[in-house]
């Protein structure tokens, strides 16, 4: 497997080079702090070792020099980001009004608002969560938080943990390896079809409001799972760094659908790493929405490792004022007859910048690979930016690769057409934007699609 990992690394981090980081020491993050985190979490000894090694790796890697500017992240103060609980708001009154208003307008119930803002546990969902648990246990499915998994399913965690996203991958993967905390663990045994979607939303809690959470999902041969991460309401956190990690293992003939809405509050740097390893005839489906954060760098990666493995990626990104969202997808075709379909929509407005960045790699071992990329961008005004940066690296024989990119604006004739039918100008524009993302919205679970439409209306209100 090492080879394929190396491949991914090359595809993603080719541009990393000589520029010596000014944040060489990161003095704040010490072995002591790591030991303290580990002790508090009751890690087994190997996990403590893993964290310490990751810390060493972290110290040797520079910040990425490509993509959006993340120098606002003060790495000298990294310790304040990782100190357990230092990040939590304890008081509802400290949550910014902008976030509270959005909760209200999306119609989020009070208990959930507090949970999303990290000031309370999510009481309402507890009941739902427990009844779901019972059904899963009957099927032999494990669905729990990472800390519990590390105690109750230590062997499985040890076998898979950060093998797909190794700490040496990049600086934030190393940081994650050293300080990770919280997240979800799902194990689906061979042949089991988990008919209900599992939602990490049920599992949000104050302690793991999600800064360095780790998600590990293993879907054994011919099993089936739909996992939904996050929620379309903004998640608020006082600190400004999110460096989560998601590792998905999709075995022979298995199917995993992974849906996410990332809507971090506007002070966040969202540097999340997500990767799936797909074996023979397996299928991974990503549905990914990126709305919030100040800066995002997010490129879910699918390594098509077995003959006939497939990937479907559907993504939407909406960058507003002050946001720089750099998103896309990576596909590594590493076996014969593998296929991938990437379909994305990005929107930018009020000076926001949205970049679609993708890498498709077809290795020598992957004859007859098929990949189609369709990315469309909509700029809502003249001050906004939109870029499309697709990279293709094809070594395999008889590859069938298609790429279609479109960058455009709202058609004034279409606005007139809708207005001629009695629809107000604001609503006409909102309808056109919603229509633009409709191919993505229809892939989302219904309640998320509805919330996404509300979000778009909120974003557009008074702006146009």
């Amino acid at each position, binding site marked *: 497997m090492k080879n394929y990992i190396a491949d991914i690394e090359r595809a993603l981090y080719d541009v990393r080079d000589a520029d010596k980081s000014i944040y060489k020491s990161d003095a704040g993050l010490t072995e002591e702090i790591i030991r303290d985190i580990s002790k508090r979490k009751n890690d087994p000894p190997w996990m403590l070792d893993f964290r310490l090694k990751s810390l060493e790796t972290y110290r040797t890697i520079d910040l990425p020099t490509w993509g959006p500017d993340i120098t606002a992240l003060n790495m000298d103060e990294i310790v304040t980001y990782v100190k357990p609980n230092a990040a939590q708001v304890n008081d509802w009154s400290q949550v910014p009004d902008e976030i509270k208003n959005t909760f209200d307008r999306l119609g989020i119930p009070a208990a959930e608002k507090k949970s999303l803002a990290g000031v309370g546990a999510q009481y309402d969902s507890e009941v739902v969560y427990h009844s779901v648990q019972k059904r899963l246990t009957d099927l032999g499915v494990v669905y729990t938080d990472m800390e519990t998994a590390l105690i109750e399913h230590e062997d499985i965690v040890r076998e898979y943990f950060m093998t797909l996203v190794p700490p040496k991958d990049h600086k934030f993967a190393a940081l994650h390896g050293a300080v990770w905390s919280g997240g979800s663990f799902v194990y689906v045994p061979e042949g089991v079809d988990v008919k209900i979607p599992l939602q990490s939303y049920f599992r949000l809690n104050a302690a793991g409001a999600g800064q360095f959470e780790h998600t590990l999902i293993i879907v054994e041969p011919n099993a089936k799972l739909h996992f939904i991460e996050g929620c379309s309401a903004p998640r608020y956190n006082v600190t400004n760094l999110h460096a989560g990690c998601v590792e998905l293992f999709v075995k022979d003939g298995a199917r995993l659908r992974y849906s996410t809405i990332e809507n971090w509050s506007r002070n966040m740097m969202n540097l999340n790493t997500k990767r799936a390893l797909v074996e023979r005839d397996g299928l991974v489906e990503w549905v990914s929405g990126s709305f919030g954060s100040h800066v995002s760098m997010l490129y879910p990666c699918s390594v098509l490792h077995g003959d006939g493995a497939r990937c479907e990626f559907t993504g939407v990104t909406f960058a507003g004022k002050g946001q720089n969202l750099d998103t896309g997808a990576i596909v590594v075709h590493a076996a014969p007859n593998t296929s991938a379909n990437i379909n994305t929509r990005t929107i930018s407005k009020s000076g926001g910048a949205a970049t679609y960045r993708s890498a498709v790699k077809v290795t020598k071992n992957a004859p007859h690979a098929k990949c189609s990329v369709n990315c469309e961008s909509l700029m809502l005004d003249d001050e906004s930016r939109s870029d499309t940066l697709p990279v293709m690296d094809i070594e395999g024989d008889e590859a069938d690769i298609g790429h279609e990119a479109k960058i455009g604006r709202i*058609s*004034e*004739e*279409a606005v*007139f*057409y*809708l*207005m*001629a*039918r*009695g*629809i*107000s*100008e604001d*609503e*006409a524009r909102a*309808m*056109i934007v*919603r*229509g*633009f*993302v*409709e*191919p993505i919205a229809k892939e989302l679970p219904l309640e998320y699609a509805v919330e996404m439409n509300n979000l778009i209306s909120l974003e557009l209100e008074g702006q146009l």
Partner: protein
Amino acid sequence: MLEIENLHVRAGDKEILRGLSLKVAAGEIHVILGPNGSGKSTLMNAILGHPKYEVTDGKIFFEGDDLTALKTFERARRGIFLSFQNPEEIPGITVENMLRTSKQAVTGDKIKILQFHKELLALMKELQINPEYAGRYMNVGFSGGEKKRNEILQLLTLNPKLALLDETDSGLDVDAVEIVSSGVAKFHNEKNSCVIITHNAQILKHLPVTHAHILLNGRIVKSGGAELVGEVSERGYAQFEVTP
């Protein structure tokens, strides 16, 4: 119902309508004839307040009120409808969703979804539109004829007071023109009015045309009854040219 007085309209630097006057009363059907570039479509767009067309002089009254300051959607809500010559494609918005939203906007009433769906399907059947099209994106991948029938579907759904039809028959085969024509006939009654731009007398076959006008160089040069339509199809527009 509609009263246009001495209308001057420019698009960019070009003056297109140069003192056009027209009166349309309830129950009437007016036909506007004229060669390409004479200003027919400009007139339609100006009545609905298209931002590209600037009214430099004159007034448009609808039911006694001056429309000039009103936005397009406000004019539509008062009961003016335009069947577009080239209907826009709007990806991601289904025909049914668009029509329901429009109907709600125009009537101001909350629409009952199931009932609306039933009524829509009935109308689609009459216009010989495949019911699957209710769930397709607005005009996306529709043939020319399908787009035009979709316009008539909107006309019948929204049931305006004044229907402006801009070459709704152009590019259609004989059967399709027949469908469109009977759709307009179904819409029309003594309380509403139509203004029809056409090059083709066939669409008028089932319609009790009350007036016809010849539009040349931004002015109406001759008005009369339905018989004008026949004169034009026999002898063209040259006879109406006015030497300045």
